[in-house]
C-alpha cells in the first residue's frame, strides 16, 4: 500500500515535469503555426526563432503556452495526448482492426513468446552444458559475452535475409532475433543457479551414491529456480525488444515495431509514444506474469515469501 502511494507520487511528479517540459519543447512549432495563422509573434520569422532559446521564446510569447499541450506533431506530446491515443487505439478500436494497438501488441507478443521459448530453451541447454562440461564452460562463456556486444539491429536485416533465402519467413525470423537477445541472461542466471548448491548439498548426494541425472533433477534444478526466474524476467523484456527490432526490417508489416516505425515515418510523435508505452506496458505485464508464476511455483516449493 505504501509502495503504491510512493509510485503514484513519483508518477505524479514525472507527469508534472513532463507537462512543464512540453512548453519549451513545442514552443517553436506552435509559434510557426501561429505566425502562419497571422498572429503576431516575437521574433517574427521562423529563421530568427531557430537560433533563439526556447525559454526566451516562451517568455516573449506566453499566450502560446496552452497550445503547446495540444500540438498535432509535437516534439514532445503532452501526457494526456499519449493517454488519449492509447485509449483510442486499445479500447475504442476493434481488436481485429489494423489500427488497434492490441492487434499489433498481439502480433509482437507471439514473436516475443516464441523467441523467448527458443532463447530460454537454448539458454538452459547451454547452461546445463557449461555446468557439466569444463570445455564448454571455458570456451563458450567468453563468446557468449562477445555475442552481446554485437549490435543486433545491424544483424537483424541480414538474419532476415539469410532466413528468407532458405525460405523461412513470418514469425520465425523475428523470434530468432528475440531469442538472440534473451538467451544470454538465461545462460548467465542459469549457470549461477545450477552452481548454487553448496558443497554440502552436493556431498549429501554423493553419500547417497546418486547418479548425475539424479543430482541434476533433485538438487541442481530445484535450487536454480530463483535464479532462473530472475533471469527469465530480464530475458522476456529483452525478447520483446528483439521482436520489435525484428519487425523493423521485415517491411514493418504489423506489430508494435511497425507502429513505431510508421509513426516515425509519418512524424506521428503521439503514435510513437503510445506504441512505446504500449511496449513498456506489455513488458511490465509479461514480467508481472512471470513473477506470478514464480510466486506460485516457489510457494509450492516451500520458499518463504
Amino acid at each position, binding site marked *: 500500500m505504501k509502495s503504491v502511494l510512493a509510485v503514484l507520487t513519483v508518477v505524479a511528479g514525472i507527469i508534472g515535469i513532463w507537462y512543464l517540459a512540453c512548453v519549451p519543447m513545442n514552443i517553436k512549432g506552435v509559434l510557426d503555426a501561429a505566425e*502562419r495563422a497571422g498572429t503576431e509573434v516575437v521574433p517574427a*520569422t521562423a529563421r530568427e526563432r531557430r537560433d533563439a532559446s526556447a525559454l526566451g521564446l516562451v517568455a516573449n510569447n506566453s499566450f502560446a503556452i496552452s497550445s503547446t499541450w495540444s500540438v498535432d506533431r509535437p516534439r514532445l506530446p503532452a501526457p494526456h495526448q499519449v493517454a488519449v491515443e492509447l485509449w483510442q487505439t486499445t479500447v475504442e478500436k476493434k481488436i481485429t*482492426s489494423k*489500427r488497434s494497438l492490441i492487434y499489433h501488441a498481439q502480433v509482437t507478443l507471439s514473436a516475443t513468446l516464441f523467441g523467448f521459448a527458443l532463447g530460454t530453451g537454448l539458454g538452459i541447454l547451454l547452461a546445463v552444458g557449461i555446468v557439466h562440461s569444463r570445455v564448454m564452460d571455458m570456451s563458450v562463456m567468453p563468446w557468449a559475452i562477445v555475442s552481446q556486444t554485437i549490435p543486433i539491429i545491424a544483424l537483424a536485416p541480414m538474419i532476415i535475409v539469410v532466413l528468407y533465402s532458405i525460405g523461412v519467413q513470418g514469425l520465425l525470423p523475428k523470434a530468432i532475433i528475440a531469442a538472440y537477445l534473451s538467451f544470454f541472461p538465461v545462460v548467465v542466471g542459469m549457470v549461477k543457479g545450477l552452481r548454487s548448491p553448496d558443497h554440502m548439498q552436493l556431498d549429501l548426494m554423493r553419500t547417497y551414491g546418486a547418479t548425475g541425472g539424479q543430482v541434476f533433477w533433485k538438487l541442481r534444478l530445484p535450487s536454480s529456480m530463483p535464479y532462473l526466474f530472475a533471469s527469465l524476467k530480464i530475458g522476456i523484456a529483452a525478447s520483446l525488444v528483439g521482436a520489435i527490432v525484428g519487425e523493423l526490417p521485415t517491411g514493418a508489416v504489423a506489430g508494435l515495431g511497425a507502429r513505431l516505425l*510508421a509513426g*516515425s515515418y509519418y*512524424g506521428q510523435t503521439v503514435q510513437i509514444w503510445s506504441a512505446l508505452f504500449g511496449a513498456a506496458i506489455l513488458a511490465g505485464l509479461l514480467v508481472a506474469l512471470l513473477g506470478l508464476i514464480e510466486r506460485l511455483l516457489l510457494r509450492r516449493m516451500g520458499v518463504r515469501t
Partner: protein
Amino acid sequence: ADEVKLQLKWVTQAQFAGYYVALDKGFYSDEDLDVTILPGGPDIAPTQVIAGGGADVTVEWMPAALAAREKGLPLVNIAQPFKSSGMMLTCWKDTGIAEPSDLADRTLGVWFFGNEFPFMSWMGKLGISTEGKGAEGVEVLKQGFNVDPLLQRQADCISTMTYNEYWQVIDAGVTEDELVTFKYEDQGVATLEDGLYVIEENLSDPEFVNKMERFVRASMKGWKYAEENPDEAAEIVLDNDASGAQTETHQKRMMGEIAKLTSGSNGALDPADYQRTVDTLLTGGSDPVITKTPEGAWTHAITDAALN
C-alpha cells in the same frame, strides 16, 4: 499456379499500387501466377534479398541495381513501369536558397542505404564537395525515415519524393510558398526509379522467362488500371497495409502523383532514359557510383513478349 515472390523497395504504399491492384483484381491469377508481395523497409536491401534467393523479382532503383551489378550481383532490368523520377530536394525558402548554386555551405538531409547515388552524382556535377561545410562544400546528414530534420530546422534542405515526403511537409502545416524544390528531373540528373529486376542467370531458364512475361503483363495491367482508377487503387493499397498507419487522403494523393510518373511508360525500358542514367552515374564526381559502362544490364526480351 507458378509461384512468384516480389520484393518491394519500401513499405506498402501507393508507390506500388500496380502490383497490389494486379494481385487484388486477379490479374496475376488470370496469368496462372501465385504472387507473394514482400513489403520492404528501412533496413531491407532488395538487392540482398534477391541475391539470397528470397525473391524472384524486385522493385529497385537503377543506381542501386547498377552498383550491385558492379559488386558482382548481375541484376537485369526486365521492365520499367516508372518513366520519370520523383526525387527532389526540398528547402526552406527563408534560408535564401533559390537555385542549385546556393546549396553550398548548407546542411542537407540525404537518404543513404543505396539511395544516395543520385544525390552524389548531382553534387559531383555541381562541383560541390560532400565532405563538410565550406564555400565549396555541404554538410550531409543521413536523413532518417521522416521529414523532421526539415521541420525542426536541423537541415536546410532534405530529400523528398514528389509523391510522399513532400506532402508530409505540407501536411505538417507548411505552405507551398515557404518551400523551394529542386526536382532531379529538372536538374538533368534524373535516374530511373522503381524498375523490375531479376538475376541474370535465371533468364537462361525458359520457364522462368515465361513466368516473368506473364508477371510483367499482369503487373502492367495493374498499373494501367491504377492510373485509370486512382481512388480504387489507393483503397486496395490501404487494404493491404497491415500496419494500419497509412491514411486515405495521403494514399489517394500519392496515387495521383505516382500516376504522373508512370504515364509515358508502357513497361518497356526506354534505352535513352537508361543511357541518361548511366551517364549521370558515371560522372559522379570523385567517387562515381559506377566506374565503367555496364553491359547487359537490361533486356527487352520480357517486355517484348509480354506487351505484344
